[in-house]
């Protein structure tokens, strides 16, 4: 069995520095936005007393969910013993860390009192799934770091499988926790479902793999290394399976709701007459995030095409953002049903669909989080040998043999 050679990327090209400059500017933009929100108060965002979680939360939840999904490639190698994925495991672990860091940065900087982060670390209400998530996130950082150490350090290779199993189990619990932030909300019609936990897990598989594929393709292309067909075809097929699984869970979620009379109105809102949310659901989530990537991955004409795979991954990301926007923002925009059989109105916007238009600061903060995740990834790739020198078909097969 040929040893896989890992090497840092060169990271001295003009392109690499330009990439870091752009990402750095976006991070500064995000920090400036957070500072402005902190000083002015959240009234400068599009968020209100009815839509308390907006664009920053869509991006933050997306990144956090994708972080646990990005670890999947490593899990497939060490937990399920697929040797083909093993050379990809280091990048998989790295993305798990950087995406989580980006997501948490957005979440924390959006807090009304971000300066009280220490309070969140010292006061816990263990009945809150949010409090549990604080442990799940910090634990995830520690376990994935440990897992990466077992991969990097030759003396520790023997522990890699066990660390991988622990990381895999932890990430399943972590995404269950993220889904349950919404699943445990009994008061809102769009949430309040145990199905959200497994739905978030399959979403994480799809979103994390989509980001992994795009980062892998970009890194190999820009660093002039060889990325063979075998690995891309495998990853493409896997992405297709995950996307289909997301569609399945979404279908079951809505079919269940359609069977329950008191859920008919919220279903009508999402599926039929919810305006932007209905469009985001059908066009964004279902067509762009589901049907198009499936066609791109499985259609006979597109099979094996790099651009088709990249387009499929980009569609999964766009569709995933649409899905979370429908769930998080649409779920709040739909008025809470307190008086069945009554039309409700008030000066506090009861009974009407809440208006929401994201403002520049909250978009800048959200984009800053994405930029932070990508910048951390780029810098880490330059500092440590995360990527194999070659993922050419011949090299992979010999190392997998």
């Amino acid at each position, binding site marked *: 069995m040929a040893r896989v050679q890992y090497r840092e990327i060169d990271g001295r090209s003009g392109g690499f520095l330009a990439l870091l400059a752009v990402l750095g500017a976006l991070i500064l933009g995000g920090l400036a936005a957070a500072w402005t929100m*902190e000083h*002015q*108060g*959240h*009234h400068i965002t599009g968020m*209100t*007393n*009815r839509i*308390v*979680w907006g664009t920053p939360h869509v991006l933050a939840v997306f990144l956090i969910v994708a972080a646990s999904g990005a670890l999947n490639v490593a899990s497939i190698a060490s937990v399920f013993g697929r040797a083909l994925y093993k050379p990809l495991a280091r990048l998989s672990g790295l993305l798990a860390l950087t995406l989580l860091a980006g997501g948490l940065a957005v979440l924390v900087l959006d*807090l*009304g*009192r*971000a300066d*009280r*982060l220490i*309070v*969140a670390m010292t*006061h*816990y*209400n263990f*009945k*809150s*799934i*949010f*409090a549990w998530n*604080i442990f799940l996130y910090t634990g995830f950082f520690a376990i994935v770091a440990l897992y990466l150490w077992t991969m990097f350090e030759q003396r520790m290779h023997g522990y890699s499988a066990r660390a991988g199993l622990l990381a895999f189990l932890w990430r399943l619990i972590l995404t269950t926790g993220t889904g349950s*932030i919404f699943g*445990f*909300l*009994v*008061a*809102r019609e769009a949430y309040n479902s145990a199905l959200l936990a497994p739905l978030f897990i399959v979403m994480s598989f799809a979103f994390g793999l989509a980001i992994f594929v795009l980062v892998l393709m970009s890194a190999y292309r820009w660093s002039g290394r060889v990325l063979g067909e075998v690995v891309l075809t495998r990853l493409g097929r896997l992405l297709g399976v995950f996307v289909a699984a997301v569609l399945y869970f979404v279908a079951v979620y809505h079919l269940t709701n359609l069977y329950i009379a008191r859920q008919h109105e919220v279903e009508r809102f999402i599926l039929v007459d919810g305006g932007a949310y209905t469009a985001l659901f059908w066009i964004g989530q279902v067509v762009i995030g589901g049907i198009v990537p499936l066609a791109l991955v499985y259609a006979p004409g597109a099979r094996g095409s790099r651009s088709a795979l990249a387009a499929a991954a980009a569609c999964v990301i766009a569709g995933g953002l649409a899905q979370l926007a429908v769930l998080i923002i649409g779920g*709040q925009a739909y008025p*809470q049903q*307190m*008086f069945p*059989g*009554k*039309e*409700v*109105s*008030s*000066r*506090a*916007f*009861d009974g009407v669909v809440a*208006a929401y238009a994201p403002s520049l600061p909250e978009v800048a903060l959200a984009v800053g989080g994405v930029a932070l995740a990508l910048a951390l990834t780029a810098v880490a790739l330059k500092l440590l040998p995360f990527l194999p020198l070659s993922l050419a078909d011949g090299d992979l097969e010999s190392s997998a043999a």
Partner: protein
Amino acid sequence: MNPDRRQFLAWGTAAAAGAALAPGLRLIELVQARSPEEAASALRRWGLLIDITKCADCDVCVSACNEENGLSSHGRPQTDAQWIRKVALRDTRSGYAQSLPLMCQHCAEPPCVDVCPTGASFKRDDGIVLVDKHICIGCRYCVMACPYGARSFVHEALSGQKADVPRGKGTVESCTLCVQRVDRGETPACVEACDRDGGKAMLFGDLNDASTDIHRRLRSEPSRQVRADLALNTGVRYQGL
């Protein structure tokens, strides 16, 4: 002892007894208020009974709440604080119209308290649900969890705050049942205003005390909770809904 002297002594004794007892009687009244050092007691459960057939077409309860708690508008209704609001209802089949005041329902099983990561949202032993402004991090998860849309997030800097109503930019707040008044042995501002200028629709009292009007009426008249399906055991009950 001559009769005049005897009478003088009798009156004198009565006056002395009166002078000695009166402060005591006054003390009984004061004892019912809570001293600042004394913890809220679980023997009490403060609550409201709102008869919406008497709820007039006014919003004196809302104005009184804003005045008492120093809530001022920034002219941005979507982000302004609203602790109590008047909600108009119209039956979709019959067209029957009603209105009612809606605020924090002071649940015995409050979802806002369950979800709060730091424990800033809490329930006092006497059933009043509050936010500890010192440990609220402004995550707004409680706003997501409240079935009644009762909570507001402070979206901008505050001025002219009341000394006994702690508030702060970037934290969440809601009806406190005018805890500062209740602890002084008074009724919430909305109830007082409704009694004085409204339809006398609101009754405040201790749900646990069999001698109170609220207890008597809840025992003898029908009432209901908003979103009773959630089984939160609300401290605010409605009649005529």
